[in-house]
């Protein structure tokens, strides 16, 4: 046995002999990307598409904020007409949720990293993986059609009965969501199977990197919740095509049933958005503190717990839609249980930093920003989960601020942190760290400036989705708009830093941060088949096993 294993360990420890050959230059031409089955290329194509969607959604967000600079008490004088404003905020929400946040971490970073972290060549079903990507593209085309036809003005939640009556292109949008849903289902299915059946010898469940635990929990939700959304939006599309009446009060249907169906998916979908972000933070905290993760098992279990609790709390979106008192109380109580595993994670991340060797580089700054923003987002969620306060805060800017703190301050910031963290691995280029930190700082300041005033607006009674407001709110709205511009600037800087690195960046070493997970054991960027020889699996958070080599600027696995 030892005769077989000893040459293997030595090949792993030495850097790749031909670093010039990697997945990016493995083959060339348009079709080599369009028909690729390589998970890394599929991940990169997702990344490009997702960033495009994010840009699109961001433009709509800025349009909303610019419009709200003035109270618009006279709709004639307003920058956007009321009808246009409705379309703009709906497209902002729908694009950000369905095209950007849900696929952001799992489909882009997850696709790239999952097989490498598992030491395999690819995901279990590479063709299905490519199929998921093209389903995503088809969904994008449907949304693009929506954009260029009559838009959509129902809000991203498509509540009936208005979505049945609306003159806008609800059909195209719902079919787009249906298709995107199946893209998401197939990605989740692929990841679950890959993690279950393709872990390398020696990688037990509790030796998996926490990012994989998070992606696994996410995938469970994707597989279990998304089909329900699929049938719901399909029924809504049929409602418009052939008037089936299931959700239409005019035909004795029940619009509240639509809300139940919709939130049965869309609440778990909130965890589809945040769980993989939490997985990124677990990696970032540990690697950049150069200290083993604190409470590994509890973080892993809490991911699964969040995934399961997430299915039992959808009713808290509907406290004001006339459910029975007992039901609302049960939903409220269950909502509070979700805060427990979330808090476990936050405390474990703080515990990880304690007495660690914290490197304050760009990914870590984003991770710290995440903890601050996510905590605010999570704690303000408790106000909305409590029945008495929710009655007051329901459908106000407090809700808007809350979910932006979680979705944007949480998921987006973690996504950016992860993107900076794995950027050297994905592209083989190092970015300018100082400029990266600057971008993180601007994003952090801009974000808080945008959304802290919205909490105040919400408690004072500013309803969400309104195109106009009373003059008393103008100062806070203007603060928020200035914040949004700052935030946009920060994101622009972040994008420029990454773009700059592509052309002028130094060549990235194999392991620039000192990570102990398997992706840092293949060259940057990884070769076509990921590993030239099979990797050995150790503790993913054992940082005593790696040491810095000043000559190459890289960390290496210590030879034993």
């Amino acid at each position, binding site marked *: 046995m030892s005769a077989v294993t000893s040459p293997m360990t030595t090949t792993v420890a030495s850097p790749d002999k031909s670093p010039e050959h990697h997945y990016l230059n493995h083959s060339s031409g348009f079709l080599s990307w369009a028909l690729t089955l390589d998970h890394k290329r599929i991940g990169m194509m997702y990344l490009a598409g997702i960033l495009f969607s994010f840009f699109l959604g961001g433009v709509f967000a800025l349009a909303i904020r610019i419009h709200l600079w003035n109270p618009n008490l006279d709709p004639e004088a307003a920058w956007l007409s009321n009808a246009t404003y409705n379309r703009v905020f709906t497209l902002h929400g729908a694009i950000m949720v369905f095209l950007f946040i849900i696929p952001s971490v799992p489909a882009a970073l997850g696709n790239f990293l999952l097989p490498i972290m598992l030491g395999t060549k690819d995901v279990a079903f590479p063709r299905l993986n490519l199929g998921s990507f093209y389903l995503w593209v088809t969904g994008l085309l449907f949304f693009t059609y929506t954009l260029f036809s009559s838009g959509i003005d129902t809000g991203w939640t498509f509540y009936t009965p208005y979505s049945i009556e609306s003159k806008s292109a609800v059909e195209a949008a719902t079919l787009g969501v249906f298709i995107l849903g199946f893209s998401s289902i197939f990605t989740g299915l692929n990841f679950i199977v890959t993690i279950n059946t393709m872990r390398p010898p020696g990688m037990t469940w509790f030796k998996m990197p926490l990012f994989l635990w998070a992606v696994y929990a996410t995938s469970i939700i994707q597989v279990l919740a998304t089909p329900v959304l699929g049938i719901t939006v399909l029924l809504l599309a049929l409602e418009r095509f052939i*008037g089936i*009446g299931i959700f239409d009060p005019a035909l004795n249907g029940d619009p509240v049933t639509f809300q139940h169906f919709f939130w049965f998916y869309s609440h778990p979908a909130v965890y589809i958005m945040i769980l993989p972000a939490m997985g990124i933070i677990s990696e970032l905290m540990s690697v950049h503190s150069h200290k083993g993760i604190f409470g590994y098992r509890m973080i892993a279990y809490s991911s699964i717990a969040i995934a399961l609790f997430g299915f039992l709390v959808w009713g808290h979106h509907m406290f004001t839609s006339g459910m029975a008192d007992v039901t609302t109380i049960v939903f409220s109580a269950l909502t509070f249980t979700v805060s427990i595993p979330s808090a476990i994670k936050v405390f474990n991340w703080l515990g990880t930093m304690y007495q660690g060797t914290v490197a304050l580089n760009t990914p870590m700054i984003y991770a710290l920003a995440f903890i601050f923003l996510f905590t605010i987002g999570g704690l303000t969620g408790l106000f909305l989960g409590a029945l008495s306060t929710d009655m007051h805060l329901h459908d106000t800017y407090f809700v808007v601020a809350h979910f932006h703190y979680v979705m944007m301050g949480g998921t987006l910031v973690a996504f950016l942190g992860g993107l900076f963290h794995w950027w050297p691995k994905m592209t083989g280029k190092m970015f300018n760290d100082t400029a990266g930190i600057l971008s993180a700082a601007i994003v952090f300041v801009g974000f808080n400036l945008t959304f802290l005033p919205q909490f105040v607006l919400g408690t004072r009674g500013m309803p969400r989705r309104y195109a106009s407001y009373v003059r008393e709110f103008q100062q806070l709205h203007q603060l928020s708009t200035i914040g949004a511009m700052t935030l946009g600037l920060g994101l622009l800087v972040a994008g420029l830093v990454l773009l700059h690195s592509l052309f002028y960046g130094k060549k990235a070493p194999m392991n620039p941060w000192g990570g102990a997970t398997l992706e840092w054991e293949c060259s940057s960027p990884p070769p076509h088949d990921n590993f030239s020889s099979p990797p050995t699996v150790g503790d993913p958070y054992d940082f005593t096993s790696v040491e810095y080599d000043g000559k190459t600027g890289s960390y290496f696995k210590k030879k034993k």
Partner: protein
Amino acid sequence: MKIESPRQQGRHPFPKFQKTMTEVAAPADGHGHDHHDHPSWLAHHFDDAEQQYDSGKLGMWLFLVTEVLFFSGMFCAYVLYRNRNPEVFEFCSAFLNEKLGAINTGVLLFSSLTMAWAVRASQLKQTKILVGMLGATLGCAAMFLGVKSVEYSHKWGIGLLPGRYYVAQVENAPHAETNYLQMLCVIPAILSAVFLLYYVYSLVIASKFHQRVAGPLLVSGLCFFAGVGLGNILEGGEHHDEHGAGSHAHDDAHGHAHADPLVQGVATAEKATVETADEGISFVKTSGGPVNDVAVTKEEEGIPNSKVNNQGMAGLFFSIYYCMTGVHAVHIIGGMLVITWLIVKASREEFHSEYFGPVDNVGLYWHLVDFIWIYLFPLLYLIT
């Protein structure tokens, strides 16, 4: 020491895999990165046949879970509306021909048997039996759709349409001139013609492979029309009468249910009125949703069972009926496509004891499609 991988710990039900695994894995350190020892049927990123089989199987089971959840939305809608308006379901169910439903149930159950047999045949490399069994499954699926076409077209003809297109059922109503059945038969007819040409071509070029593929396809095309014929016979002569003479002397003579609810309707309607009135009040209390008493307009007063015989009541039932059976039929068509793909692969003799995952997994899918129908049949057809 070499640590055992998770997948190496459990014994596999098929002992053949154990052998392959050790054969393939041993030279490559249990994590085969070498290409030369990969047989053509083993994808490059899998270590061995067992891993490939297990991945495929787990993937299919997960997919089936999503399918069940996909249908669960409609089952939920069914439960909600039946609970709220039980009398509507009784009234409308009588319009469904349980004989056709029963035949289709039998056809699908039989196709499950042939599918299971096909899995066995693929393991034993019995190519002829495998192609035959897959062909039989495909034929059954086509027959199911044939019967379904008769059911659908008949209902469309007399205005049993979903939601806002529902036409209140009255006796002696004029029936639409459109022959929906012919429209539904156009595509199968074209396909059957293509399959016939393909079969003739395969005979001409004397290709065993093409004959194996074309034969089952042609048979399944014919099975569709056998299903249509069978459906027409069971749907009864009254279907003919309605289109022919337009007379409705058949009401008492025929066993077919569609006239019954209108004849016996009065008693049910009385009962229904009382029930809905009671429930209406309790409903308002528990939910903010709409109250379920649809106003009866002047024109509707002359219609039998007007409380339920309208778009918001019976129409909603038919919405649920068409959504559930329609989505199910789409799954049947999807199943037919993948079974055709299997027939092509089977005709190339690709399956053997170490590689039969596709047949096994399509089989699982097919059983699920049957399974859903087994729920749909009593829930929709057998309400008394």
